[in-house]
């Protein structure tokens, strides 16, 4: 512990996070956590989807189309949550140069992009019978489309350089700048007059939808969040192993 840390009396956050920079330690921990993410994810998602499709009632206004909500809303939440995660690991990469942060950014991107694409597609399929159109250029839809382009741009930028470190830095800066889109998505329905409805579930207030529609939604939200974490964890484990493989092959080639 250096003098400044001793004076502060506690470990800086970057140092405790660096404990997991050891690939062996990370792989052991991730392998132990993986089944606790994967199996509950499948159980919660299947229960939520079954409840949403067969047990919950139709909405008095929208009819059965409301059943699209049980996948559209969790996907929207994960699209935004995934980008918050991407911004967080990008910050870790830039500030603490954490070796796993860059790999995590590389693996969160495609999963977040898939969630955003699914959010846009299911929203479009919900919009046609409800609004009479698949797409309108309103603030909420457009800002989510921008989020999708940010994910795709991040995925391309991180792989665009021959020097991988430069790719990591450029993509991290892009993710941090792109995070500006997240509050715009959240408040777009309040700041502008949009076709998209305002949020029915908030962290601060009581939900404005009926409990009979809420419980399958809660199940799919938990299930898909765990599923997102399970897939990112598995991809990150594979990425760490692949990096070790490249290192071993490089060492063997140098020795030969």
């Amino acid at each position, binding site marked *: 512990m250096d003098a400044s840390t001793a004076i502060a009396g506690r470990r800086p956050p970057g140092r405790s996070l660096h404990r997991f920079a050891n690939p062996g330690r990370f792989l052991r921990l991730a392998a132990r956590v993986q089944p606790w993410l994967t199996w509950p994810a499948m159980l919660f998602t299947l229960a939520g989807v079954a409840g949403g499709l067969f047990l919950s009632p139709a909405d008095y206004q929208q009819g059965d189309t409301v059943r699209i909500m049980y996948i559209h809303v969790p996907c929207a939440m994960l699209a935004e949550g995934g980008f918050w995660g991407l911004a967080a690991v990008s910050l870790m990469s830039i500030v603490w140069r954490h070796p796993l942060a860059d790999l995590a950014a590389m693996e969160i991107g495609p999963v977040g992009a898939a969630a955003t694409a699914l959010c846009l597609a*299911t929203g479009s399929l919900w919009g046609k019978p409800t609004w009479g159109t698949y797409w309108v250029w309103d603030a909420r839809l457009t800002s989510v489309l921008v989020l999708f382009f940010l994910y795709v741009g991040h995925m391309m930028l991180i792989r665009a350089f021959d020097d991988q470190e430069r790719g990591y830095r450029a993509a991290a800066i892009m993710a941090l700048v792109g995070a500006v889109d997240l509050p715009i998505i959240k408040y777009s329905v309040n700041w502008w007059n949009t076709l998209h409805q305002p949020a029915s579930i908030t962290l601060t207030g009581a939900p404005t939808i009926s409990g009979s529609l809420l419980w399958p939604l809660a199940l799919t939200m938990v299930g898909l969040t765990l599923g997102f974490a399970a897939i990112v964890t598995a991809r990150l484990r*594979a990425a760490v192993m692949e990096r070790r*493989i490249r290192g071993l092959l490089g060492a063997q080639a140098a020795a030969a």
Partner: protein
Amino acid sequence: MTELPYIIASYVLFAFLAVVLAVTTSLRLGRARARLKALDRRADPRRERTP
């Protein structure tokens, strides 16, 4: 029920993407694990004899 095709399309898309992500991820993880095991064994042949 005129909304049914939209509901089915949404859930089919969701299931398709979930399966694609899960299968490609588990294949990639399995491949990386097997390759790493083989390389580790080649780098340290004593491990093969260890029970």
